[in-house]
């Protein structure tokens, strides 16, 4: 069943076209990767799907959507005294009283953290934990709204390689367990290969769309990133 369709979508930002006549559809349960060079409009497309930027064209949702969103960067003052638990109370999808919350709310927050193997961080300050741990917390926060579709904007952009290795298998299992539809922006094409059922390549316009096997052929990549680009696959060891 089709989850949503994007029809002839264009976005203009500051007088410039950020996206032009983009059309594609996403099936329920599908993992879709958005790829393209910097400034290709990938984040803009996510924003349009979130309803955050005005656009021309149509986005047709065939199912009631509940979006979980993991933004590209979460910039904050490292000295901020905010605990992981408080982070959930502040940014949780369902309102929970901040000053005194019930044991049930506490169990629920622990449950979400357990899903990303971060339960032990609950009373840590978010300034103290590593980027990789923080990213896991943010993924848990996105899952706390019990979404049926997850948007991930370069989920490993700020993480070291060790952290990156653990994030993707984790995301895969989270998505599988909750049978989520997911849209991911990634620069790492080998991740795209492992992760996605479908790839949409953007360079302001739609350049290609299809399965990773067909799209990541060198002719298509050449069209997207310039000639001479080929995919070098480094294997992520499966545990």
């Amino acid at each position: 069943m089709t989850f949503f369709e994007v029809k002839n979508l264009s976005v203009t930002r500051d007088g410039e076209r950020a996206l032009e006549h983009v059309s594609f559809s996403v099936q329920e349960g599908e993992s879709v990767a958005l790829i393209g060079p910097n400034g290709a409009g990938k984040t803009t497309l996510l924003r349009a799907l979130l309803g955050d930027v005005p656009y021309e064209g149509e986005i047709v949702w065939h199912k009631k959507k509940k979006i979980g969103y993991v933004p590209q960067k979460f910039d904050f003052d490292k000295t901020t005294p905010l605990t992981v638990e408080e982070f959930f109370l502040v940014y949780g999808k369902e309102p929970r009283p901040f000053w005194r919350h019930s044991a049930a709310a506490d169990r629920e927050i622990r449950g979400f953290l357990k899903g990303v193997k971060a339960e032990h961080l609950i009373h840590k300050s978010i300034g103290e934990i590593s980027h990789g741990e923080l990213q896991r917390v943010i993924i848990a926060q996105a899952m706390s709204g019990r979404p049926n579709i997850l948007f991930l904007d370069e989920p490993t952009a700020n993480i070291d390689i060790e952290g990156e290795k653990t994030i993707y298998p984790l995301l895969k299992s989270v998505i599988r367990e909750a049978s989520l539809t997911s849209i991911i922006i990634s620069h790492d094409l080998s991740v795209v290969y492992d992760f996605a059922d479908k790839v949409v390549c953007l360079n302001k316009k739609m350049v290609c769309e299809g399965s990773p096997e067909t799209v990541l052929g060198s002719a298509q990549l050449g069209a997207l990133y310039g000639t001479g680009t080929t995919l070098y696959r480094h294997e992520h060891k499966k545990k």
Partner: protein
Amino acid sequence: MDFNLFIVSIVVSAAAALLGVFIILRRLALVSDVLSHVALPGMALALLWGIQPFVGAFTALFIAIAGIFFMERKFAFSIETLVGIIFTAAMGIGIVLIPEESLIESLFGNISNIGPHEALFTAIIGSALIALTVIFFTKFARATFSQELAKGSGVPQGKTEFMFLTAVALAIALGIKVVGTLLMGALIIVPAVTAKNIAWSLKSMTFFSVMLGVVVFLGGVSLANAFDVVPGAAVILVGGVLFALSLVLKAFRIR
């Protein structure tokens, strides 16, 4: 200490320190400092026309805040730039308008003549402000740490932002008569920064900030009474000493 002054001290310092938590975490310390100067022309006109200085101060602050809010969105100026421009203009107007004998009082505050009506008025408005800030605490916090995540949550940001700025304006207008325009900003910033140095969570920071705010204010005002010095200055000096102590504590914790 006079009972009226006691009530006003507690309410004003608690409200300022509570909002100060967000001001500090948003790194808007200078903004609040500078905003308090904007109250000057409002107080000047209030003095000239014989109306409550609070009303004049709040009106001027509200106009400035509304101006900042809309210009920031319309012209994409940074909030610091806008505050800088409005502040200097307001200071100029204020100094031109205020009769010289009232100027010192407007700049440094006066605790000698707080009547029962004024104390009651401050207590009511201040308590309401504190209650509303506690109720909307999570909303204010959402916009504080990450605009990105706040957007994803589907809460309209503009409304929260405007409410927050209005709350800050109210807190400043309430305290300005007592500590004056020059030092009101510090009443918002100093307790919150000190609290941040010793806090381990947002809850503890908020709690410490309010406690410190009240202690600093009452301590400063008592000192001012005892040694017959300008109250605003005494308040800030007590704040400075506690801040230095918090730094020492922080240094030990880091070690």
